[in-house]
C-alpha cells in the first residue's frame, strides 16, 4: 500500500500540517532545517523557473529575415500571441473539451470503485489490499503499450464495435477507432488510477458511524450519500479531478495513437510537431505558455470554488 500512500494520502496530509506551528527541535534548529531547503529550491529554480522564463522569452522571438528554418532572433514580437491563437484555437478548445469529458468520466467510473474499496471492503484488509493493488497495477506496465491495447480493443472488426453495432448503439458503419470517442476513452483510462486513489484516501477516513447516524435519522441511503458521504469526500474529488484533468489536457500520446489527424488533434500534438518537425519554436512556446496559463487560472478558480486549498 505504500506506493498508494504516496499518491493518494499525501494530497491532504501534506497540506493539513502546513498551518501547524512547528515545535520541538524543528523550531529550535530552524536555521539548520532551513539549510536543507537550499539544494532542492536551487534545483527547481534552475530547471523549472528559469526554463519557464526561457519559454516565455522564446514565445516572443521573431524569425530572422532571410534566415533558415528554425532560425529566430530574440525580440518582443507580441503579435505572436494573437496570430498563433487565431490559427490554433480549435485544438486548444478541443484539448480542454476532451480533458473535461474524460475527467467527468473518470469520476463516474472511479467513484464506485473507491467507494467499494474504502467503505464496502472496510474491515477486510486482505480484500482492500488486493483491490488497491489492482488500481495501481496499470502503473506497472508500459503506458504506451496499454494505449496501443485500446487501439486493438476498439478496432473495427473487434468484439466491442461488433456488439455495439448489433445493439444499434452504433450505426452499421459506425466506428470507434480513429474517432474522438477513442481518444476520450483512452484519456479516461489513462488517468483513472489518479482519480481512484485520492477518492479512496478521503473515503477511507469517513467514520462509518456517520452513515449509521444518517440511517438512524430515517435518511434513505441515497440521502445519506448526498448529504454525508459526498460532501465528506470532496477533498478527494478535488484532488482526483485535478490529477486527472491537468495531465489529460496536455497529453498527446492518446490523441496521436488512438485518434486521426483531423478531428482529434490536441494541443500537445501541435506543440510537439512545431518543435520537432517544423522547428517553429516561437509558436510552440506561445501554445505552451497559453496552455500553462489557462490551466493555472482554471485550477485556481476551481480550488477556490471548491473551498479547499489542501493541494497547495
Amino acid at each position: 500500500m505504500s506506493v498508494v500512500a504516496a499518491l493518494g494520502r499525501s494530497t491532504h496530509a501534506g497540506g493539513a500540517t502546513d498551518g501547524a506551528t512547528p515545535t520541538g527541535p524543528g523550531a529550535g534548529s530552524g536555521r539548520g532545517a532551513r539549510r536543507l531547503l537550499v539544494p532542492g529550491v536551487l534545483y527547481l529554480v534552475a530547471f523549472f523557473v528559469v526554463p519557464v522564463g526561457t519559454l516565455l522569452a522564446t514565445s516572443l522571438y521573431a524569425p530572422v529575415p532571410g534566415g533558415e528554418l528554425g532560425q529566430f532572433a530574440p525580440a518582443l514580437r507580441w503579435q505572436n500571441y494573437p496570430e498563433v491563437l487565431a490559427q490554433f484555437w480549435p485544438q486548444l478548445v478541443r484539448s480542454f473539451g476532451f480533458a473535461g469529458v474524460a475527467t467527468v468520466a473518470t469520476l463516474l467510473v472511479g467513484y464506485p470503485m473507491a467507494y467499494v474499496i474504502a467503505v464496502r471492503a472496510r474491515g477486510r484488509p486482505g480484500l482492500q489490499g488486493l483491490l488497491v493493488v489492482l488500481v495501481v497495477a496499470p502503473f506497472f506496465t508500459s503506458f504506451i503499450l496499454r494505449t496501443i491495447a485500446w487501439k486493438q480493443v476498439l478496432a473495427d472488426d473487434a468484439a466491442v464495435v461488433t456488439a455495439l453495432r448489433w445493439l444499434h448503439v452504433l450505426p452499421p458503419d459506425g466506428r470507434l477507432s480513429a474517432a474522438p470517442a477513442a481518444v476520450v476513452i483512452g484519456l479516461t483510462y489513462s488517468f483513472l488510477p489518479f482519480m481512484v486513489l485520492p477518492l479512496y484516501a478521503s473515503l477511507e477516513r469517513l467514520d462509518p458511524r456517520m452513515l449509521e447516524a444518517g440511517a438512524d435519522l430515517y435518511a434513505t441511503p441515497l440521502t445519506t450519500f448526498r448529504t454525508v458521504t459526498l460532501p465528506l469526500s470532496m477533498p478527494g474529488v478535488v484532488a482526483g479531478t485535478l490529477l486527472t484533468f491537468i495531465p489529460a489536457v496536455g497529453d498527446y500520446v492518446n490523441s496521436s495513437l488512438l485518434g486521426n489527424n483531423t478531428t482529434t488533434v490536441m494541443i500537445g500534438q501541435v506543440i510537439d510537431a512545431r518543435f520537432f518537425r517544423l522547428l517553429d519554436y516561437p509558436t510552440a512556446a506561445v501554445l505552451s505558455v497559453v496552455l500553462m496559463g489557462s490551466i493555472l487560472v482554471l485550477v485556481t478558480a476551481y480550488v477556490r470554488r471548491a473551498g479547499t486549498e489542501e493541494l497547495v
Partner: protein
Amino acid sequence: MSRLRLGGAVVPVFAALGFVFLLVPIAYTVLFSFNDAGKTNLVWRGFTLDAWRNPCGAPRVCSALVGSLQVGLLSTLVATALGTLLAVALVRARFRGRGAVNLLVFLPMATPEVVLGAALLSQFLSLRLPLGFGTVVVAHVMFCLSFVVVAVKARVATLDPALEQAAADLYATPWQAFWRVTFPLLLPGIGAAALLAFSLSFDDFIVTNFTSGGFTTFPKFVYVSATRGIPPQANVISSAMFVLALLVVVLVQIVSRSRRRR
C-alpha cells in the same frame, strides 16, 4: 447493516466493471507477448513462446530498457535525496517565504508534461547543450522532485517532534538525532516516494521525448516503433516488469502487515 448499503448490488457491479476497464489493456499487453506476430503485433495470429525465449531479439529493445533503468535509478536517487531534505525543512522550519517554496514545489505538478518538456528543451537549446542521457536525467529529477516532497511531507507530519527532543535530552547532537531517530522513522515514506519517483521516471514518455535527442528509453522505443509495428519483445519486457513489480508490492504488503501484528 443492510439499510446502510447504498444501491445494494448496483455499486459493486459498477465498481467491478471499472476494474475490468482498468485491467483489460494489461491483459492485452501480456497476451500479445505470446503472439506469433507478423510485421505488426495488433492481430492475434497464434500462440508462441518465441519472444519470451529471445526477449532481446528485436533490435534496440534491450538497450532502450537499459537506458530506462539507468535514467530511472539515477533520477530516483537524486530526486529522493533532494526531495526528502526539502520535505523535512518544509514541515519543521518556520521561515518567511514558506508559502513561496510550497508554491514552487506545487507548480511543476500543476504544469502539463508537454509544457515542462517544451520549457526544458528551449532552455537546453538556448544553452546549446547536447541532448542525451544527461538532459533526460536532469528533466526527470525535476518532475519527480515535487512528488517526492509531497509523499515524504505526509510522513514527516506524522512524526512526533518529542522523539527528537528526547534524543537531544540524551545528549545526541542534531546530526545524530536525525540519523538515529528521524531518518529510520521516515524510511517507509522515503521508500514509497522513491518507488513513486522510479515508476514516474521509468514510464515517462512526453518529457523524455522533448529532452532526449538521440537517446532512447523504453517508452520512447515503443512509441517510435508504434508506426511500423511494435515487436512482441516489448510486450515480453513490459509483462515481466509487471509480474516483478506485483511481486514486490505483495511482498511489501505482507511484510508491513506482519510487522503491524507484532
